[in-house]
């Protein structure tokens, strides 16, 4: 209740006059999936004497729109949460200042997609097919290990995917099929999936909790597009506790798509030095080790250690499907519209 009275006080103050920002407040704009733990945030604040203010601004697309629209009068000093499907757009809009962080040295080159260092990689997650283990056991059905398998009549009516126009894992899976079958082949593949009774829903929640049989017991389909990290979370957030997940991820070559999220210093910041310190901090082991259990994404810094549950149950694809960030920016709309025409109409 204490927070309620603080809020009322803040509302009262805000109604009277906007308070001038104190010089030591660093504002970090994010999407609404951002989270961090109290001790980690405090560590940065103590280290620098600054105060961090986070500004969640809706889902990833909305937040990026906000940052782009406010380019002339930036709302924050740092923006976190643009992914590789939006990266080129953010760079074209020129909202970031370059920063060649010394921390980048430790980070594998395949994460570092922006040679101008305006957007720096922070975390990644693989969008992969997940399956309900008991279904495949009970029906003595081999688990598919190529995208082509999903069009096989043996898997008729088993798969649920998300709409790429409304869902980011949905878009990632569409990109995986484009990476694998090429621009000329992916639509034929989706026609075959449609023949094979693929179910499309609009968001991850509806697919995973509503239609997939492996998670909430409400669905009937044993194959779903989710994340490579979903199985360990079925253990970590199980209720009642379980020793191993009822689901598993398929990580065969060319079946997953890797989402990488970036951070950047917003043009026009008045706290450039502090913003650099925050970015270095985000790439440091302390923050990187904190991310998986807060945000369900994985560190790009190889020195960061993972919780044993992840070591045991997380599947990381060796060769996710590849699509260039520039190609995504250039063709995103056209690919999604062609897909909609073939799969939904």
């Amino acid at each position, binding site marked *: 209740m204490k927070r309620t009275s603080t809020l009322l006080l803040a509302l009262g103050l805000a109604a009277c006059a906007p308070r001038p920002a104190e010089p030591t407040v660093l504002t970090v704009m994010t999407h609404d999936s951002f989270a961090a733990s109290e001790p980690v945030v405090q560590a940065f604040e103590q280290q620098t004497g600054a105060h961090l203010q986070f500004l969640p601004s809706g889902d990833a697309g909305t937040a990026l729109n906000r940052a782009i629209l406010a380019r002339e009068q930036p*709302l924050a000093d740092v923006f976190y949460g643009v992914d590789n499907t939006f990266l080129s757009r953010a760079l074209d809009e020129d909202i970031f200042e370059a920063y060649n962080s010394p921390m980048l040295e430790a980070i594998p080159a395949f994460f570092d997609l922006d040679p101008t260092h305006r957007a720096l990689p922070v975390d990644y997650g693989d969008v992969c097919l997940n399956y309900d283990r008991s279904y495949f056991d009970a029906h003595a059905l081999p688990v598919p290990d190529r995208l082509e398998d999903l069009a096989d009549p043996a898997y008729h009516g088993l798969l649920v995917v998300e709409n790429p*126009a409304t869902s980011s894992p949905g878009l990632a899976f569409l990109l995986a099929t484009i990476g694998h079958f090429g621009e000329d082949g992916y639509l034929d593949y989706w026609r075959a999936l449609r023949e094979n009774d693929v179910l499309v829903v609009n968001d991850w929640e509806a697919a995973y909790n509503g239609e997939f049989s492996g998670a909430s017991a409400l669905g009937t389909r044993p194959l779903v597009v989710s994340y490579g990290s979903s199985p360990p979370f079925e253990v970590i957030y199980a209720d009642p506790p379980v020793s191993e997940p009822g689901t598993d991820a398929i990580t065969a070559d060319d079946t997953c798509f890797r989402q990488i999220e970036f951070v950047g210093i917003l043009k026009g910041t008045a706290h450039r030095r502090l913003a650099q310190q925050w970015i270095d901090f985000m790439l440091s082991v302390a923050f990187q080790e904190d991310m998986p259990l807060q945000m369900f994404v994985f560190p790009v810094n190889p020195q960061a250690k993972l919780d044993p549950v992840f070591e045991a149950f997380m599947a990381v694809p060796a060769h996710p499907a590849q699509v260039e960030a520039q190609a995504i920016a250039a063709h995103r709309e056209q690919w999604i519209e062609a897909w909609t025409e073939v799969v939904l109409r």
Partner: protein
Amino acid sequence: MDRGVDGSRPPVRRKVTRGETRSSLATGALWIGPLAFLAVFFFYPLASILSASFARSPAGAWGTWAEVFGRASFPRLLGFTFGQALASTGLTLLLGLPAAYLVGRYAFRGRSLLLALTAIPFVMPTVVVAAAFTALLGPRGWINLVLMQVLHLEAPPISFLHTLTAILVAHVFYNTTIVVRLVGDFWSHLDPRQAQAAQVLGAGRLYALRTVTLPLLLPAMAAASVLVFLFDFTSFGVILLLGGPRFSTLEVEIYTQTVGLLNLPVAATLALIQLACTLALSAAYTTLARRVSRPLAVQPRRIAQQPLLRARPRWAAAVVASALAAFLLAPLGALALRSVTRLDPERGETSFPTPAITLAYYKALGENPRQSIFHAAPATAIGVSLAYASLTVVLSLALGMPAAWALARRPDDFLSRLVDPLLLLPLGTSAVTLGLGFTLALAVPPFDLRASPVLVPLAHTLVAFPFVVRSLLPPLRSLQPRLRQAASVLGATPFRILRTIDLPLVARALLLAAAFAFTISLGEFGATTILARPEYPTVPVAIYRYLSRPGALNYGQALAMSTLLMMVCAGAMLAFEKFRIGEQREF
């Protein structure tokens, strides 16, 4: 000007007296607050985002218009948006009107509870309602499981999710409360003796209903219909989550273009089309509303309402009340039940999961094992939601009361005719458009509110304000002008007339308006998620955080939080009802 009871105009136009000029000026002054608010917090942000969006169009604004209208899918999009809204509104009236009759005409035990129950769906975020319908009617929902068990079926017999039926049912589920409350409240003031007189003179019950009662109810019915229609017309979450990818409305398309494709020019074009449709509709409605409203002999509830004494009305009432309660309670109950049930499913099979009762999800809500900075303890989230809701009530009443009063007193003023249709526009504006507009317009001087927590109740007030005006107008317009005139002749000042004649008569409508504003704020998600500060999470934002994560515990916590929201809403609505009963000065 004021009309006779039969709705005809006074035959002779009188000269405008000096007194009337002064009163016209006073009416104009009433508009200052509401218009200033709309100008700064609605039209200015809207104009900013629309012009910024069109400025980004490579083909120029006209090129974008040509592109949008040229799309093969556009007529279908527009047709479906209108069609589903029309069908949903019709069905909502079909269920809502009998219930409005029941709560309007009869005093019975459980009336307050029934009214509180109808308000609960209104505050439920669509993600939760989608989860509730999935738990009830999904492929492995309770109903399908029971049918499969009883009828020995291999596959679930009912396919409900991702159909047009799901969209319509969810819309009726959400909006029935608007009809029940607005029409029911108005009905409870109608003098039943008029219809009784018609029956004494030989009219059948239905004939009396059709020729006497329904015409008198028309203002309230029109207000309820237009609000329901606009909610359905701009429906987002229901279409997206329950309708699925095969269905799209203007609002869904605006969101997809903005967020999924970053195509702001097309989004702005669609937003303008949606606004134009809203404006056309509300212009038609406000013209109609001015024509059909007439002064009535308003009666206190103890005269207008009768107890359920005879067997036939008792039976009819029982049928209506239980049908409504079952329809609303089934999905909500499925949710609440799931929040205290731990399922140990035999995965992939179609048998019954074995349930066990648990309070683990509620207990876990208060814990923050990962020490997240954004953890929202239930007490905090509820406190923040209540604070925002209370502020929304205060703001929207402060703005809505003068607006409604000005509209009721001088409906034919130039200003009234001009502004009336504009008041509904915030309901036709997509949350993402408005959220981005706030970002652009309210983050720079002279209105630098960038990360201020006050943005959230301001955005809520924009949605609540039209509801407040529409709730207050029908009863205000039905006041007998003779009462005011008599008071004026006897020397009462305008303020005294307001206080002693108008206010007591519309006190109940004020509570109704406050209840609407309260529930709108409590359930709002779209704009809140863009504008809310992480330190001050609302309950819907907290629910969404849990629901967007994998794992049974997160899912259970989302449902537990939703159940808490239901209880808070029901409690608040019952408190509002209590407030009414304690009101002694009823006319």
